[in-house]
Every structure is written in structure tokens, then in C-alpha cells.
């Protein structure tokens, strides 16, 4: 309950930041600090109970029960330590922020700081791996956003940091999922409590490697260390909290958590200690070379994190105690130093050691607390840093793996510690005592106000107090290390252990450090040497660029607006598919009857002739006519197969296609483009293979079964069910009217989109060849010459209309129906259009979109009427008595068909009127006969 409340308070606070931030002045920071401090109180209060051996505090709330993932929280000794750190340092830093920033609204900053506190608290309290991961990623997002928030220049570092830490996050995700799948649970305590799964060394090694990756990226271990200095683009409070005290410790926390599972793994220890010590030395070395105090502090953080990782690798309770105490010590001194850097920056306007010096006089408090923190960092008694570092040395000496490992590791650690001493001196001496005094006189810097300094003072003094009273930390450290390792830990934290190797190492480190300070001018000389030119950010950018260029190349493969290439791929796939099926050689059974008749060869030959010639001709007109022939031959096939309605529709559609195509072709050049022979050959190969596949598919996969049940039902029941005897038509308007409704919608939409597209894009200028004959020749005169067509059309048009209505009415019992009738009606309009002496006369001034819409609405209406009989599109029947006796069998299917009719006619009207618009430029040509003639000379073949 306590833990849920804690998270709830933090959540509510975060959500409330936009409201809180309306407070005037610096109150947002103070309020947040107060909340964090208050939140820390019950946590701290729970400490003694835990140290006394009490059960961990737990809380549960369901989240994703179907996955078995819940809001399981658990505070044991280890979690307590980190939780206290997060809240405590959080309170200090937010309080500091209030003074750091000039008054004004900073909603984003405070929101993210608060969210970060929430995320970090959640992370250390999570007893569910998934939950842990969620909070882990949230800290990453907060870090990314906070860095980016600090200004335009910070966006690149933010992105770099984000991507790198996200890489680690994904490794963690993989580890989480692997463990989950392996153990069947996401409960961290259960997984770590029962480490039967660690018997599988291969599996454990994989998981360990993933966790290592997560830890290293989050805690800035070599070779990923570079992000941390990069992240210094963020404002100082962010650096102090996220990039020194809290977020970077998430890796440390994770490594400590997983210690029981991985200690025995052959990968874990060596990798951790190698990387840790390398990082410790490298970080310290780099810190010593910095001029920017913030960068120095950042590299120092890297180095200290290296110490922590190295000591965790040892895996013994002693080592974990050292890690726990050093985590605490580091949080305190590093937060102090960052805050001090912020103060210096604020007061002097610079962080560059070359411009700073002798600030101690002007800023004595800052100088004092910086010195306290630096001494703790350097491991000088009686500060907490001394105790923690000595424990680290001691633990390292006890590396269990090999007898030589301990001394070697300890030696390296001493070297790193010596460097630490050196850069600690560089920081404090360089800024406060040495160097040229920073500005003098009235311009000289002044000490910061009490409220600004309050937070660093608290953290600096804590390091001193806890160092002096370090024995008080024993129960806490014991519980933390015990909970981390699963073994009992017996801490003996004290300022004085007697004369032991660790003390010697401490002394050695201090001595060596002093020598370094002496002979390198506090590192100043080192700064002149060039280090190997490998910079982390540069490597990152190179990898980044490589990925992007790989991406560009990937995109290049499809970077074309020519439909052809996009169309070729599916064809090739189908050919491949057919080949695979053929090679598998499945038995599809014998044909259920004879598959051909002699007369069939007539359409075969016609189709073949049409297709062969259509593909070879370079004349668009010829191609159009030949494709039309192929359509006619197809219609013959339909007739052969007993599909009269289909043949009729096919014919009508074919002709209307030709009519429309002519309207389009006249605007285009008469010939097709030339194509390279190689491309023609490739195309031909694909075409022939596709044709073979189609033939094989059609032959093998059809005609090998008995007539279907649905076919039998239709043929047996159509008249009884629907009152119709043209079964195909009953399928269209009764049984599967939904299909027809869709089809009619498609047709109607085609009409609309033709209008829409032409409305927005317009037709191309006419590219067809102009007639070559003089305009004064009698053959030109359209008014006279169309008299024949007009006169015949005047007879034919009413004939077509009547005929179409007849076809509409009889569709249910004979070939016909809405579509066929509509197409015939449509051809009446086409005829009227063609016969007119000019395009403007030809225009049919009907609201054709309305005709289309009326058609669709009529069909829908007849469908809705069906609801009266229990279903949409269920036809209603009525026998209408006729005045001359007998009765007419009326069905709403006919209404539906009327809708179809209207839509078809509407679309034909649309196509003719829209595509038949006068040719752009035609009027101009008429106005100037010379224009007509000049085309005439060029236009003949």
C-alpha cells in the first residue's frame, strides 16, 4: 500500500505540474522538492524495519492480467537504498533548480524531472520484469527530453544519447522476454529466487550478455561511456540528478539485482570487471584532461561508475556492500559537485578552468562544499568516499576466479583512484585557489544566495556526516547486499580497519595522486597530449550515417514512379508460385468430363490472332481494335459456355470501352513508345511464362469436381425462391444482391472520380494528329456531314431506349436485367454524343452525378425495404392484378435493378460528357486557319 501510494503521489504530482507551474516565482521547484522530500519520509521510516530483518514491503495492482504482467512492487534492502537515493537527491536537486533557473515557467522541465523521479522510483521498486523495463525506458525518455529541452544545440546529443540507451533498453527487453518465456513468470523475485534456469549455461550466458549490454549503456561503461559527457548539453540540475546520482545508477542497480543469477556465469564476472576497470581508468584519465568543469565532472562520473561495475562483478556480499556504500557516496559527492559547477557557471558565466581561478575568496561556501565533495571523491578520510573506496579495494582483492585476478584488479583500481585524486585536485584547486583570479573589482563574482546553496550544502555535509558515522550504515549495507546476493552479508564499515592492504592501497592512491598533481600540473600537461583519435560520438555518427546510407540504397531498389517495375514483381512471384506448385506435383484428380469441343478452337484462334497482333502493333488504334476483337472472342466463349447474359454484358462493355477509349486516344500520340529490344525480350519471357502458368492453373484447378451444391440449389429453387427463371439474374438481384450493390457502387464511384480527377487535373492538350485536309473543303463541314448520323440516330436512339427498358423489365426471366439494360440505354446516349455536330451540342445537360446517386439510393432503398421481411436486400413480392386480367409478378428486385440501370446510365453520361469535352486548343485552331495548315503539313505520315 505504501509503495502504491508513493507511486500514486509521484504520478499525481507529475500530472499536476502544469497546474503547479502556474505558481509565481520559483515556487514550482520548491513545491516539487517538498513533495519528494515528504515522499522520502515514509521510505526512510521503513528502513529500520527492513534492517531489523523485516519482510520486504510489497504491493500489487493488476495491469495486464492476460499476460500475467502486473504492477508488482517490492521494497527490500537494495530497493530501499536506491529509492531513498532517488527521492533524497531528487528533493535536493529540484530545490536547487528553483534557485538555478531565473523565475518563470518551466513546465516541461519540472514535468520531466518529476516524471523521472517517478520512473526511477518505479524502476527500483518494480518486482515485475516488464514493469522494470517500462520504468527503465521511461527514464531514458525523460533523459532524452530533458537534454533536448535545454536548447537547439542539444538536440543532436539528445538523439545520440537516446539511441544508445535505447539499444541497451532493447537488450534488456530481450533479456526480460527470454526470462519470462523460460520461467513462465515476470516476477523478478520469483525468477531470482529460483535460479534453476541458470543451470542452462548457454541460455544464461545469452541473458547475461543482454543484461550486460543494458547495464553498460545505461551506466556509461566502456565502450559506451561517451554518451555521458555528450549528455552534458543538458542543464546542470539534469546532469546532477539524472547523469550523476540517479539514472546512470539504474545500470548499477540492475547489475546488483542480477548478481545471484549471474555470479557463476563465466561471462558475467570477467566482462564486468574488465569493462569496469577500463572505464574507471579511462574515465579518470579523460577527466584529468578537461578544462570544462562540467565535462570533468561527467568523465569523473564515468570513472566512478566503472568502479561500481567492477566491484559488483566480484559478486561476494562484501563486494556488494562496497558497491552499495559507494553508490551512496558517489551520489552525494557527485550531486554536490555538479550543483557547485552550476553555481560557478551562474556566478561567473563560465565553466572553463582556463578562465577560472581564485574563486575561494569570493565564494567561500561554494569553495568549501566543493572541497568536501572532491575530497570524498578522492577517498580522503574521514569522508564517506574514503570508506567506500577502501571497501571497493578490499572487495577487488578477493576476486574468487583466479589468484592473480585480485591483485591485478586492485592495482588497476589504485591507478584509477590515483587519477581520481588528481582530477579532484584539478577541479577544486583550479577553480577556487589556483590560476588567475576570475575578474576582480566590482565585476568580481559574488557568492550565491542561501537558497541556491542549500541543496549542495546538505549533500556535501551528508558525505562528511555519514563518513564520520559510517558504522551507522552497517545494517543498511548488510540488508542491501544480503538482498542483492541472497546471502548473508557481514559488514564492518568503519573509518579505521587497522593496517590492512586496503589502507595501503588508499594511501598509495593518495600518494600517486599527489605525484600526478605535482608532475602534470594537475593534469594540465596531459591535456596537451593527443589521445587516439577515436571519439565515441564520431563512431556513433559514422554508424548512424552508414545505417542511413544502407537505407537509401534499400529505398533505391523501389525508387521509380514507372508502374511497370512495380507490376513486374507480382508477375514474377506468381510464376514462381506456379512453378513451386508444379514441382510439388500434387494430384489434383482427373477431369470430371470432356474439357473441349472441336468448335472451341474458333474462339481460341480468334483470341490468339487478336492477342498476337495486339502485342506487336505500334498503332494505338490497331491495338484498341484488336483488344476489342479479343473481347468479342471472349464473348463467343461465353456463348459457348451458356452464359448469354455475360456475353451480352461483355459485348456492351467492350463497345463502350472503345467509345471511351476513342475519346482519350484522340488526345494522345497515335503510336506507342519504342522499347529497347532487351526489355522486350525480358517482357516476352515473363509474359510467356505467366501465360503458361495461367494455362496450367486453369487446366489443373478447374473442371475436376462435380457440380457444386450451390449450383444445384440455384437451378432447382430459383423460380420458387425468387419468381425468376433467368437464374443468373436471380443471383444478381436476389441471392447475391449484396455483390451487385457493391458492383454498382463501384461503377458509380468511377463516375464520381472521373469528374473529380478531371476537375483537379484537367485533360491533356490534344496530341492527336490534326486532320490534314483544308478547312474549306466540304468534307470538313461537320454540320452538313453529320446529317446522316443525326438522322439515323434520331431513329435509333428511341429504339435503344425502348429496347433497354424492355431488357430491364424482363431480366428476371430472360437475358437482360439492370446492367445490360443500363448499358444499352447508355449506348443511346453515346450515340447521341457521337452523332452531334459539335461537342458543345453533344453535351447532355443532365445532372449525371445525381443520376448515379439516384441509382445507388434506389438500390439501397430496395435493400432497406427488405428489412420489412427480415433482411437487407431481401426481395419483397407482390402480385399486381392487371386491368386486362391476369397479374404481374412484382418484386423489389426489379426496383433494385432500376437502381442499377440508373447508375449505369449516369456513369456513361459522365464519361461521355467529361472525356468528350472540346479539345483544348481546338478553338484557337479554328480561329487561325494557318495553325490548322501548319499542323496539316506536319501531321501526315
Amino acid at each position, binding site marked *: 500500500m505504501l509503495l502504491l501510494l508513493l507511486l500514486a503521489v509521484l504520478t499525481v504530482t507529475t500530472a499536476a505540474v502544469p497546474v503547479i507551474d502556474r505558481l509565481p516565482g520559483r515556487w514550482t521547484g520548491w513545491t516539487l522538492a517538498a513533495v519528494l522530500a515528504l515522499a522520502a519520509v515514509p521510505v526512510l521510516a521503513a528502513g529500520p524495519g527492513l534492517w531489523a530483518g523485516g519482510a520486504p514491503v510489497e504491493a500489487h495492482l493488476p495491469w495486464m492480467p492476460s499476460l500475467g504482467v502486473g504492477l508488482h512492487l517490492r521494497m527490500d534492502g537494495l530497493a530501499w537504498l536506491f529509492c531513498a537515493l532517488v527521492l533524497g537527491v531528487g528533493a535536493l536537486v529540484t530545490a536547487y533548480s528553483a534557485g538555478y533557473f531565473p523565475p518563470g515557467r518551466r513546465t516541461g522541465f519540472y514535468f520531466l524531472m518529476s516524471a523521472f523521479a517517478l520512473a526511477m522510483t518505479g524502476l527500483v521498486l518494480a518486482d515485475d520484469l516488464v514493469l522494470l523495463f517500462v520504468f527503465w525506458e521511461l527514464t531514458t525518455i525523460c533523459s532524452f527530453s530533458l537534454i533536448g529541452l535545454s536548447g537547439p544545440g542539444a538536440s543532436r546529443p539528445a538523439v545520440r544519447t537516446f539511441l544508445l540507451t535505447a539499444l541497451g533498453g532493447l537488450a534488456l527487453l530481450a533479456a526480460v522476454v527470454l526470462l519470462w518465456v523460460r520461467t513462465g513468470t515476470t516476477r523478478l523475485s520469483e525468477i531470482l529466487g529460483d535460479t534453476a534456469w541458470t543451470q542452462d549455461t548457454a541460455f544464461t550466458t545469452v541473458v547475461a550478455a543482454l543484461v550486460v549490454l543494458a547495464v553498460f549503456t545505461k551506466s556509461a561503461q566502456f565502450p559506451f561511456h561517451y554518451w555521458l559527457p555528450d549528455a552534458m548539453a543538458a542543464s546542470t540540475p539534469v546532469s546532477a540528478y539524472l547523469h550523476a546520482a540517479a539514472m546512470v545508477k539504474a545500470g548499477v542497480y540492475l547489475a546488483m539485482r542480477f548478481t545471484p543469477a549471474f555470479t557463476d556465469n563465466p561471462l558475467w564476472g570477467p566482462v564486468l570487471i574488465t569493462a569496469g576497470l577500463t572505464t574507471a581508468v579511462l574515465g579518470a584519465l579523460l577527466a584529468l584532461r578537461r578544462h570544462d568543469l562540467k565535462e570533468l565532472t561527467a568523465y569523473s562520473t564515468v570513472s566512478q561508475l566503472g568502479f561500481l561495475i567492477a566491484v559488483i562483478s566480484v559478486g561476494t556480499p562484501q563486494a556488494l556492500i562496497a558497491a552499495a556504500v559507494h553508490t551512496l557516496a558517489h551520489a552525494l559527492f557527485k550531486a554536490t559537485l555538479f550543483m557547485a559547477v552550476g553555481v560557478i557557471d551562474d556566478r561567473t558565466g563560465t565553466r572553463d578552468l582556463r578562465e577560472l581561478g581564485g574563486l575561494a575568496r569570493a565564494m567561500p561556501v561554494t569553495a568549501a562544499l566543493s572541497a568536501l565533495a572532491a575530497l570524498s571523491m578522492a577517498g580522503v578520510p574521514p569522508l564517506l568516499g574514503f570508506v567506500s573506496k577502501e571497501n571497493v579495494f578490499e572487495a577487488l582483492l578477493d576476486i574468487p576466479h583466479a589468484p592473480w585476478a585480485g591483485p591485478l584488479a586492485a592495482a588497476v583500481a589504485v591507478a584509477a583512484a590515483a587519477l581520481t585524486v588528481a582530477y579532484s585536485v584539478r577541479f577544486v584547486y583550479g577553480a577556487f585557489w589556483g590560476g588567475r583570479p576570475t575578474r576582480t573589482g566590482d565585476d568580481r563574482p559574488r557568492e550565491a544566495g542561501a537558497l541556491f546553496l542549500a541543496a549542495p550544502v546538505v549533500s556535501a555535509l551528508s558525505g562528511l556526516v555519514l563518513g564520520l558515522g559510517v558504522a551507522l550504515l552497517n545494517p543498511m549495507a548488510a540488508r542491501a547486499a544480503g538482498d542483492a546476493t541472497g546471502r548473508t552479508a557481514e559488514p564492518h564499515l568503519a573509518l579505521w580497519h587497522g593496517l590492512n592492504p586496503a589502507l595501503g592501497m588508499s594511501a598509495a592512491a593518495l600518494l600517486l595522486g599527489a605525484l600526478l598533481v605535482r608532475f602534470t600540473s594537475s593534469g594540465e600537461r596531459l591535456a596537451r597530449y593527443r589521445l587516439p583519435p577515436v571519439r565515441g560520438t564520431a563512431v556513433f555518427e559514422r554508424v548512424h550515417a552508414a545505417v542511413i546510407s544502407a537505407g537509401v540504397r534499400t529505398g533505391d531498389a523501389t525508387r521509380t514512379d514507372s508502374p511497370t517495375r512495380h507490376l513486374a514483381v507480382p508477375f514474377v512471384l506468381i510464376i514462381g508460385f506456379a512453378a513451386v506448385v508444379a514441382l510439388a506435383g500434387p494430384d489434383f484428380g482427373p477431369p470430371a468430363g470432356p474439357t473441349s469441343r472441336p468448335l472451341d478452337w474458333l474462339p481460341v484462334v480468334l483470341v490468339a490472332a487478336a492477342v498476337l497482333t*495486339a502485342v506487336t502493333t505500334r498503332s494505338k488504334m490497331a491495338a484498341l481494335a484488336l483488344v476489342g476483337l479479343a473481347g468479342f472472342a471472349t464473348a463467343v466463349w461465353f456463348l459457348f459456355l*451458356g452464359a448469354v447474359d455475360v456475353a451480352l454484358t461483355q459485348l456492351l462493355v467492350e463497345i463502350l470501352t472503345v467509345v471511351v477509349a476513342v475519346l482519350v486516344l484522340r488526345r494522345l500520340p497515335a503510336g506507342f*513508345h519504342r522499347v529497347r529490344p532487351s526489355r522486350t525480350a525480358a*517482357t516476352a519471357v515473363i509474359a510467356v511464362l505467366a501465360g503458361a502458368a*495461367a494455362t496450367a492453373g*486453369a487446366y489443373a484447378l478447374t473442371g475436376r469436381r462435380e457440380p457444386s451444391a450451390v449450383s444445384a440449389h440455384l437451378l432447382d429453387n430459383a423460380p420458387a425462391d425468387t419468381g425468376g427463371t*433467368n437464374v443468373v439474374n436471380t443471383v444478381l438481384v436476389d441471392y447475391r444482391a449484396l455483390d451487385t450493390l457493391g458492383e454498382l457502387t463501384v461503377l458509380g464511384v468511377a463516375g464520381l472520380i472521373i469528374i473529380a480527377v478531371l476537375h483537379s487535373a484537367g485533360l491533356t492538350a490534344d496530341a492527336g494528329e490534326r486532320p490534314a485536309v483544308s478547312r474549306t473543303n466540304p468534307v470538313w463541314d461537320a454540320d452538313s456531314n453529320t446529317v446522316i448520323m443525326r438522322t439515323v440516330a434520331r431513329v435509333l436512339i428511341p429504339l435503344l431506349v425502348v429496347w433497354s427498358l424492355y431488357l430491364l423489365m424482363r431480366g428476371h426471366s430472360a437475358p437482360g436485367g439492370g446492367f445490360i439494360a443500363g448499358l444499352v440505354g447508355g449506348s443511346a446516349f453515346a450515340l447521341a454524343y457521337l452523332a452531334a455536330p459539335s461537342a458543345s451540342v453533344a453535351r447532355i445537360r443532365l445532372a449525371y452525378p445525381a443520376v448515379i446517386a439516384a441509382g445507388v439510393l434506389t438500390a439501397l432503398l430496395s435493400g432497406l425495404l427488405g428489412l420489412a421481411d427480415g433482411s437487407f436486400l431481401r426481395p419483397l413480392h407482390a402480385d399486381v392484378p392487371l386491368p386486362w386480367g391476369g397479374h404481374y409478378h412484382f418484386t423489389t428486385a426489379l426496383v433494385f435493378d432500376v437502381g442499377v440501370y440508373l447508375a449505369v446510365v449516369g456513369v456513361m453520361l459522365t464519361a461521355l460528357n467529361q472525356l468528350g469535352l472540346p479539345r483544348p486548343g481546338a478553338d484557337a485552331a479554328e480561329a487561325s486557319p494557318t495553325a490548322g495548315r501548319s499542323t496539316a503539313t506536319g501531321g501526315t505520315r
Partner: protein
Amino acid sequence: MTLALTIGVLTAGAVYLILQRGMVRIVLGFVLLSHAANLLLMSAGGVFHRGAPLLGRSATEALADPLPQAFVLTAIVIAFSITVYMLTLAATGTGDETEDAS
């Protein structure tokens, strides 16, 4: 077999045209391809019974499967709609050309 052959010839021609330059050839290719698909639908109903499914005119036994015929009718009209639209596209913008250069 004859029907399958027709389907194959139509498909081959269609594929060839579709893979050429220029919108008009592509459109014509698709017209052929839809013929092929429609014949395939007819083929799916079987080719042994070829009587027109108009009841009351002849014996029911030899009648062709009406369902694929209805399918084809629907498919023809849909293909027609798209063809008309594609022809419109061919007449807009850059005209027929579909490629920048060969």
C-alpha cells in the same frame, strides 16, 4: 483444355502489354487480363454443362453453373469501371507516358 489455352494466351498478351511503357498499353493489357480472369471464373464452374441457365427452356441437367456467370457479370462491370477511370488518367497530366526515359 481449349478454355485453359485461351486463358493462357490472354494472360500472356496481357502481361506483355502491362509491362510496356505507356498508360494505354497498360490499360489494354488489363482489359485482356480481366478477360482471362473472367474466363477462369467460367472455367471454375466446369465446361461440360454448357446450357444457358434459363429455366423452363430446356432440361435442367445440362445447364451450366449459374454462379460463376453471376460472378463474371459483377467482375466485368467492376473492370469496366476501372478501365474507364484508367483511360481518364491516361488523358490527364503527362498524358500517356509512364516513364521518364526508356
